[in-house]
């Protein structure tokens, strides 16, 4: 399979705690494609139900179970600021809500109906890029079909992608692996340097069994 650089320009700031991983994004696309009519339910897919992972070799090359795709790369001086996301109980149509025998009131400071003002660390990335080794045309097809934004809170407009551009480039496995988390044993074998961190190294990145001591780019 061929090496590629995938360039992205963003319409709006991107929110994330850990930089988005291209293999995670592509596995999401494959999951959506497999379960077209039931949509995707975030959070707790058990691995065996997650077709997006099983189908990932259709799009990406692997090195010893590690997908050969980097995390999002961007200029180190991209400004960071605190944005927020808000939510509150809608009182306008409360006449429709059945409170039973309880008093018709809700607590907005705590509990189920509490109001949110959730801070979000937003990064102003004008242009970002991923490297990967795989099927470039299939990857861009999946991204164009399913991906409108990346990072947290995409449906509220964060991380919206303005443009995608795919360029073939000469890449070897090491060049990709040193830009993503790699378990320490494999990193030592390949001579990859970086920061040590306990984190996931393959999708699904929330899966506990995918976590290990890793070398991540500093």
């Amino acid at each position, binding site marked *: 399979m061929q090496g590629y650089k995938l360039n992205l320009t963003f319409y709006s700031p991107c929110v994330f705690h850990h930089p988005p991983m291209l293999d995670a994004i592509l596995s999401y696309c494959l999951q959506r494609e497999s379960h077209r009519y039931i949509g995707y*339910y975030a959070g707790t897919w058990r691995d065996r139900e997650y077709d997006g992972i099983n189908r990932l070799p259709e799009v990406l090359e692997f090195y010893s179970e590690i997908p050969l795709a980097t995390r999002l790369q961007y200029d180190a001086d991209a400004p960071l600021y605190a944005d927020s996301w808000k939510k509150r109980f809608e009182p306008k149509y409360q006449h429709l809500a059945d409170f039973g025998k309880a008093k018709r009131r809700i607590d907005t400071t705590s509990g189920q109906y509490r109001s949110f003002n959730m801070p979000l660390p937003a990064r102003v990335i004008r242009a970002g890029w991923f490297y990967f080794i795989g099927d470039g045309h299939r990857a861009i097809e999946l991204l164009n079909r399913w991906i409108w934004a990346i990072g947290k809170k995409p449906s509220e407009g964060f991380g919206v992608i303005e443009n995608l551009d795919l360029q073939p480039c000469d890449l070897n496995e090491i060049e990709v692996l040193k830009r993503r988390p790699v378990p320490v044993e494999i990193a030592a074998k390949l001579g990859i340097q970086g920061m040590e961190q306990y984190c996931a190294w393959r999708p699904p990145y929330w899966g506990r069994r995918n976590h290990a001591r890793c070398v991540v780019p500093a």
Partner: protein
Amino acid sequence: MIRINYTFKTVGPLFTGSDENSGTLRTLRRQKIALAENQVYKSRLDEKTRRDAVVQILAGVWQAIDFDSIKGTRLMSIWGEFANKLTAAARAANKYQFFEILCRSWGIEAITNKNVLTALDLLTDQELLDTVRNESKYLVLSLRVLRDEAKAKRAENNNDMLFDLEPVRPNAEAVTVVKTEDFIPCISGNSFRGRMRRLAMIDFCKRVGITKIDKKAYHTLFTGGFLDQSTQYEDFDRLEEFVRACPMLGVLGSAIGNMTIEGEMLVGWAYPLCRERGTGDQSFWQFLDTVFQTRHDSSKTENGLELTGDGKEDPQQMKYEYEVFAPGTPFEHRIACTSDKELIVSAFEHLIDLFKASPYIGGQGSVGNGELDLSELKIENGVTSNVYTKYLDENQVKIHEFWAGLKM
């Protein structure tokens, strides 16, 4: 995926409240941006002298204010008023307009302090406006301290000098100043989404004839619900049942029990078409304005009604100001729908129609704010919205029974 990239204009003033207040002025919500093109200008002033020069201008204006005509509580909050008027004037296109607007806002006819002219000539447009826009609190504080110092000196020397300032002196060599970032006022995707959700759900309830639903179900429909159960198992059949009972949940998403329905509609932020984002010729500052509202205490003029209770003599009136996008401000906006299921796409289209029929966003809508011209908002190659309405008509009884019997 259906992608709608369109532009709209504000018809009336538009206010989107932020978490920040500046004195009595409520400001617009802002987002940091990297400027499309770095702003570069030559300055003959270092940082300190630049601020001093702006303070000199403000001192000249302060000196020319007719304080005899300002009385009572207004005088007590005069510094707040000065800061607000200063911020409002900084929305001008250049330094001359800024000066004009600031003087006009105080009813000043003439200024005699020649230091003002020296400072105005030394500062570039960008330099003066950026300083006032970003450092107004510091500038007002500096002016206040200078005024207090001059007051003490005045008593000491027995003269009537209001400010005792040396004219600002420029550097021998000009320095290059580069600006790379700014905070742009904008409308959050969440604002649009919240507004559209409420339009969609009240329309749904009316069409199906729902007049009473479980409180949690109400929250699920109108606000997006909440997660209140453990996450061990997810019942996807149950989720699909919810979407069948309200296809708008498939469009807008929600949280139910321990499960999340990902909405198929994605809504972007709306940004003014402006020089800073490289999408227009004008600066976004030129689209901003400040409006004020008042609340009159009519109890004082009430004749046929006797007022009782403690504090009945206390006046309950106020004036409040807020920053708005001026009528006619052009915006760019993005909306998308990832589904290709006919019913969901049709519901999405119906939702767009509902929004076009009630094109309001932001706050203070009850006093004439927030109307948009959405004539450019169109879906290319969609299906007709009849599929959704027909589905509701055909399944009205089943849907009604589902929501009437639902206990969450």
